[in-house]
């Protein structure tokens, strides 16, 4: 029995390989994700343990506001210079150094633009001299206050060379320096992990990067011979008291790499999500392949039953085939996954500015995941066909049992129930009734909805396929193709359903993001009363900012009525993290953003007063007169009294602090500026004047309102593109499914095709017949996908109504594109099966058996 199974498997290897390919792609994603995170994780470990190799003990103050990697760069609390002396007094230390090291030193390149980073920080630091790790490659150390050195990678990216005058943006607006040297790291590296570094003299670094003199970001020390870093750490900690965090270099390296890995695991989850989509589509494909194979082997399976095989043995033999296919697909998928993981790690390393990759790592999770997922999915998908196989009566071996057209009642009822469950879960999840399990409930709802619709598809397929097919029915091959596609509603349905999943997800995501874009721009157009907006595109974790002096100068331009600069920061408010904002002119809240006062006065703020939105007031239980303690990224905690509450809208911040607070923000510079003009003033006259004011703030530019809105909403385009590209994979798998179904149908109809050829159907006509069948199936799938996706998207948009997504925007042109694409997919998928059908040997086909 075992051998018979394996032999029949080998005889159909091509067919199974095709369906196995879907599993291969899914497994590839799973193992690729694990390989990528493992390789990058170990690369980060290596980078940081290297970077901290010359530090035995590090002293830092606890951060004012603790942030995770995902929330942004944390600002270190400065350590007073006196700590350096206190550490020096501890026995067993040598080489104590006060270090300035903070994110936000942005070098202006020779093209006048700021060198951007796509992730790694842009560090500004004090020059501490050369070491085993760090060496000047060219020039000399900075000695005067207007001299800097930068790392080689940064100098290359900025296209600047030693001797050039270069501008640097820091906490302070643009300042000019002379580049006196460039440095690199041991092993010929031009940067550590893609980090850009600008090194100043110590006093300059303190002023520009930390905002005040005589403070350091941290203090490092080496242990003298005979003292271990751990022992020294404990001694230093005792000497300094509990105000400081004292860690060994190794601990620092672990912390730094752990926070980056947090970001990586997020990335990992996204990849696994796409793996899940690929595998869901793959499941349909495998289910279909096995169903067709079982149908074709009816006689053979009946024979097995007739000569004594039990139903269980038949199930076993089909499942065994599935296991074999699953195992092979897992192996191939794992290999492909390792390749993809390596490629992505390489690209990531390049993008991060030359991260030195540790050796490629294949963690056990990748291998276990690959085999578990690949095999389990294949077996699960094959269970239903296996069950059907076991029900073949032995008598089918003796007679040509015409497989009766089984009624669709059961499947339709089942589909309705599953769809209803999916809809119910979606309702619960989107309605916010599921509590902590909201995401799981929504995902479950989507999954159930897909399976439910897939089960309903055979029923829907009859009328729809007939309708679609009638477009092609003007020629005989077209008519035959149409009839063929309606011949086996289940098979057509599953093939189309596989395509549906991918298209539905793409459509759904597009509906949601387009609606978000539409709603935001509608709101912005209705409410923002500013003719000109100053802003910059955010390329890394740090938003673009500009010189606050621009605000005053802009306000002085004739015809300008109101100028508001918006600042933002993550702060803790009564111990809980929240986003806080500062408007340089509080009046803008009403006059530019159209905020309405719910309570108190929102048109002015004293230095000890704050405004909150109605949502914040509700969730934090605040009213006018409440006092709130706010800790910003820098400085000491400050207590404010709530003096006004404004109605929440999409454009308002949760909390508005008085302008004085902005000095303690992580970025004490405005991120956006809004300029309102007096009536009758020409935008074209004011815009160039503001442009001139922004000459020293190259990160931002000034645009009119429409351009600003477009720029803001276009930020959603990047995630949309990425999701579309990744979901395209699901569509590729579905195409494999169409190819597979057609190939199997052609094989099944060898005799019939031979007969058609014998009575005069030409080769080209045969091919056209197959193509029509493919096109009908794929358009049907795309149509289903567009409908289901629009439904899902609309449901989500409706649920997000309270979040400000009020307009449902349907991407009509995209939908039409999908349908056209589906037609092309159909034609492409038909190529190989059609050629095969056209090549059928007429005599052989009709003489056969």
């Amino acid at each position, binding site marked *: 029995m075992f051998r018979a199974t394996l032999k029949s498997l080998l005889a159909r290897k091509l067919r199974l390989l095709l369906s196995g390919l879907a599993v291969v792609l899914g497994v590839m994603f799973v193992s690729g994700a694990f390989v990528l995170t493992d390789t990058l994780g170990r690369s980060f470990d290596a980078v940081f343990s290297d970077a901290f190799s010359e530090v035995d003990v590090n002293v830092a103050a606890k951060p004012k506001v603790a942030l995770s990697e995902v929330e942004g760069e944390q600002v270190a609390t400065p350590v007073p210079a006196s700590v350096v002396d206190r550490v020096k007094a501890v026995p067993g230390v040598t080489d104590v150094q006060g270090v300035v090291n903070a994110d936000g030193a942005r070098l202006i390149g020779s093209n006048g633009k700021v060198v951007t980073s796509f992730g790694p920080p842009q560090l500004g630091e004090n020059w501490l001299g050369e070491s085993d790790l760090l060496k000047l490659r060219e020039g000399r150390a900075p000695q005067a206050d207007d001299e800097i050195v930068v790392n080689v990678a940064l100098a290359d990216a900025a296209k600047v060379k030693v001797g050039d005058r270069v501008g640097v943006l820091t906490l302070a607006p643009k300042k000019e320096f002379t580049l006196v040297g460039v440095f690199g790291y041991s092993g010929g590296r031009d940067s550590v992990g893609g980090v850009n570094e600008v090194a100043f003299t110590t006093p300059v670094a303190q002023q520009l990067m930390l905002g005040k003199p005589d403070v350091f970001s941290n203090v490092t020390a080496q242990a003298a011979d005979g003292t271990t870093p751990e022992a020294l750490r404990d001694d230093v900690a005792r000497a300094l008291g509990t105000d400081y965090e004292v860690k060994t270099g190794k601990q620092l390296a672990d912390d730094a790499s752990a926070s980056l890995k947090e970001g990586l695991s997020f990335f990992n989850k996204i990849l696994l999500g796409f793996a899940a989509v690929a595998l869901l589509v793959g499941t349909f494909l495998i289910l279909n392949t096995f169903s067709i194979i079982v149908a074709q082997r009816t006689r053979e399976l009946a024979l097995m*039953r007739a000569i004594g*095989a039990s139903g269980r043995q038949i199930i076993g033999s089909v499942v065994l085939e599935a296991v074999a296919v699953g195992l092979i697909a897992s192996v191939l998928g794992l290999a492909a996954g390792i390749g993809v993981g390596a490629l992505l790690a390489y690209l990531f390393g390049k993008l991060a500015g030359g991260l030195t990759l540790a050796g490629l790592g294949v963690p056990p999770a990748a291998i276990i995941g690959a085999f578990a997922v690949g095999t389990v999915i294949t077996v699960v998908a094959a269970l239903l066909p296996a069950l059907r196989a076991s029900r073949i009566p032995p008598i089918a071996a003796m007679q040509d049992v015409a497989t009766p057209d089984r009624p669709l009642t059961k499947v339709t009822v089942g589909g309705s129930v599953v769809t209803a469950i999916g809809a119910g879960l979606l309702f619960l999840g989107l309605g916010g009734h599921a509590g902590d399990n909201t995401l799981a409930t929504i995902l479950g709802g989507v999954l159930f909805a897909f399976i439910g619709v897939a089960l309903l598809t055979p029923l829907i397929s009859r009328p729809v396929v007939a309708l679609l097919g009638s477009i092609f029915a003007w020629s005989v091959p077209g008519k035959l193709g149409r009839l063929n596609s309606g011949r086996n509603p289940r098979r057509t349905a599953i093939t189309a359903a596989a395509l549906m999943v991918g298209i539905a997800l793409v459509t759904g995501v597009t509906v949601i993001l387009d609606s978000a874009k539409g709603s935001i721009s509608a709101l912005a157009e209705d409410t923002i009363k500013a003719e000109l907006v100053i802003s910059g595109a955010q390329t890394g974790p740090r938003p673009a900012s500009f010189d606050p002096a621009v605000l005053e100068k802009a306000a002085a331009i004739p015809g300008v009525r109101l100028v508001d600069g918006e600042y933002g920061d993550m702060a803790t408010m009564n111990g809980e993290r929240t986003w806080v904002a500062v408007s340089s002119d509080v009046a803008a809240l009403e006059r530019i953003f159209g905020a309405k006062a719910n309570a108190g006065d929102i048109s002015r703020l004293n230095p000890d007063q704050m405004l909150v939105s109605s949502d914040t007031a509700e969730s934090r239980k605040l009213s006018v007169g409440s006092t709130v303690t706010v800790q910003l990224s820098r400085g000491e905690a400050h207590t404010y009294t709530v003096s006004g509450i404004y109605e929440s809208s999409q454009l308002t911040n949760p909390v508005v602090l008085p302008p004085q607070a902005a000095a303690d923000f992580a970025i004490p510079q405005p991120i956006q500026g809004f300029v309102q003009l007096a009536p009758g003033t020409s935008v074209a006259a004011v815009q160039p004047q503001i442009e001139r004011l922004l000459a020293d703030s190259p990160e931002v530019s000034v645009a009119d309102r429409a351009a600003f809105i477009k720029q803001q909403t276009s930020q959603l385009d990047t995630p949309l593109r990425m999701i579309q590209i990744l979901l395209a994979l699901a569509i590729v798998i579905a195409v494999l499914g169409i190819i597979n179904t057609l190939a199997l149908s052609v094989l099944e109809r060898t005799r019939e095709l031979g007969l058609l050829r014998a009575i005069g159907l030409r080769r080209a006509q045969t091919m056209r017949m197959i193509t029509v069948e493919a096109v009908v199936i794929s358009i049907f799938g795309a149509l289903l996908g567009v409908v289901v996706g629009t439904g899902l998207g609309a449901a989500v948009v409706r649920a997000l109504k309270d979040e400000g997504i009020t307009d449902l925007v349907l991407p009509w042109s995209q939908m039409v594109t999908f349908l056209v694409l589906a037609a092309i997919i159909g034609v492409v998928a038909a190529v190989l099966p059609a050629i095969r059908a056209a090549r059928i040997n007429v005599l052989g086909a009709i003489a056969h058996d």
Partner: protein
Amino acid sequence: MTATVGQQAQAAARASDVWKVYGSGEAQVIALRGVSAEFERGRFTAIMGPSGSGKSTLMHCLAGLDSVTRGTVMIGDTTVTGLGDAGLTKLRRDKVGFIFQQFNLLPTLTAQENILLPLSIAGRKPDPAWYDTVIDTVGLRERLGHRPAQLSGGQQQRVACARALVARPEVIFADEPTGNLDSRSGAEVLNFLRNSVREHGQTIVMVTHDPTAAAYADRVVFLADGQIVSELIEPTADTVLDTMKKLDAPAEVGN
């Protein structure tokens, strides 16, 4: 009419008042009308009859492939009627062998693997002596490594016969075994079936409409219109043909 030949105790298969009705209402077809018959151990019985006489249905019911509407079927001392799937599977494994008109060999397996398939499905080892005997009787020793596609029709059918014989079932049911063969190959297969009955005591029930094939049997049972209408012991092609001619003129048999 009831065919009663030989002693009851020796019956390898028996049908008692078997009715088989397909469909209901207007579309109702009565395929078997109260057939009772016994097939003795160690004999070669042919079931004959014109198309639609119910001969194939009778065989399917006897073999447990199809359920009966009324009446009982026994194979050896097992009552087939009312057995569940597990019981029927065991029956097919241990007591019944089949030979089909279409040969029904697995194209992916070699001749030898096809022959041993029933045993390997049941997880049994072949009796080497009996296996050798079977192989020599069918004369396929040189062809054991070939696949069905590399064998002639006659050879394929001999593989199918060997497959049925090797498990030593209580009874072998053959459904038009020569229907797809030329007369020479057909004669080979029939000779071989008869020998297995004579020399090894195998019981064979064969459905056929070919009088020449039926003449190889020890006994022929004739069916018409769902009933047993006649039978011949030690038939010859001529006597079978004569009986068939009478059956083709129903008026003469009617009474």
